[in-house]
């Protein structure tokens, strides 16, 4: 069964509703045993980086997540802030350490050329790596709400969108995946991404 990591993230229920709609069994939990025994993990997230990491630490989930991913090789999908937490560091309101599962840092979207920050709306994905199970994202629009983005090596980018800078939209490092956009708010393409993760990435 999939597990959604319970740390009071704002979009948790909408993420669960999407999996329910897809008929994917999923459980909301902060229990280390359930997390370590899950077939796949979802890390949701909305809001600021620092408080989110603080909540994960307070709930003693940081080491559990790392063990699940690094030792037990359980596939993980981070969503929006949950994706940003996968990286090493963030400079959102001070310096904060992340989970360090993907090399790279979270930095502010530069305000230039009249672009509004946060980026809020539908933007078009350009496939950066071919041959993953997510090739279908090419040319598709997904829904973003964010002011910070991941600065990382291009080899981790499944897709990116243009917002003044190249914004990583979907990232991967081994069995760790992340979407900067909200698949639970991105219509059919979003549901396809969640379904592909649940049924093709996660071992059945």
């Amino acid at each position: 069964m999939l597990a959604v990591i319970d740390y009071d993230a704002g979009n948790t229920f909408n993420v669960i509703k999407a999996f329910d709609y897809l008929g994917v069994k999923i459980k909301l939990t902060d229990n280390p045993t359930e997390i370590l025994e899950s077939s796949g993990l979802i890390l949701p997230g909305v809001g600021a980086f620092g408080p989110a990491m603080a909540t994960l630490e307070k709930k003693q989930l940081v080491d559990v997540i790392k063990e699940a991913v690094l030792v037990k090789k359980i596939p993980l999908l981070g969503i929006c802030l949950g994706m940003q937490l996968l990286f090493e560091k963030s400079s959102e309101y001070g310096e904060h350490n992340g989970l360090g599962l993907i090399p790279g840092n979270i930095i502010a979207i530069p305000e230039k050329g009249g672009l509004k920050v946060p980026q809020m709306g539908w933007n078009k994905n350009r496939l950066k790596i071919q041959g993953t199970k997510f090739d279908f994202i090419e040319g598709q629009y997904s829904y973003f709400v964010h002011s910070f983005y991941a600065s990382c090596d291009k080899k981790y980018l499944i897709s990116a969108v243009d917002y003044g800078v190249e914004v990583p939209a979907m990232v991967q490092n081994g069995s760790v995946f992340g979407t900067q956009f909200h698949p639970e708010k991105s219509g059919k393409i979003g549901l396809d991404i969640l379904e592909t993760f649940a049924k093709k990435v996660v071992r059945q």
Partner: protein
Amino acid sequence: MLAKRIIPCLDVDNGRVKKGVNFLDLVDVGEPAAIAAEYEKQGADELVFLDITATNQARSTMIDVVEKVSRKVFMPLTVGGGIKSVAEMQNLLRAGADKISLNSAAIASPSLITEGAKKFGNQCIVVAIDVKRNHEKKFFEVYTHGGKISTGIDAITWAKKVVELGAGELLVTSMDQDGTKSGFDIELYQKIAPEIDVPVIASGGAGKMEDFVDVFRKCNVDGALAASVFHYGEITIPNLKEELKKFEVNVR
């Protein structure tokens, strides 16, 4: 770059969509979740639900509506109409709403904008501004209570103020154009949009596809909202998007 958003607006009265939506072969034409799902299929980019009853009892009905819609429809949902407290906002967001739209309450107590933005983030707080030309004094005046009460407040000053207070988006309705089907209020959006740095949604006056082309080509607005032209099937969203693409408007 971000796509320009096409946003149908649904009036909800005691849990039912009030204006008949008659382009759909729906079994139940008043059921918000069924209508929302149909709009999602058509390619709407976002939906706005306006609670037009807005009594306490209706509020809990609205929470149910949002809960039901968000189980079937996976796109951004904005809820507005009579919301007066952070607690109400929280209940609607928990039920599955993505944004809360404040109107009269924002005028009555502007601190509500800041409280909401601090707790949920600026992106969650939309301020709806109903605007009508004051011909005598020659300015765009803000109205409240569904356009019944004039405030004497200048719309552009108010727009800048609400952004300072934390609004993440403005939904600006032209009362002069609303219901006329003669096009969006180009002059209004040309005046207001350059003054602020958050997204602006144009509303009021849509009658034909050219009206959407016009507002996106002439004004720096991020989305356009309409109700009856979509509900009565006078414009379908796939056709509208095809038309917009012809004029090089970036749509999904």
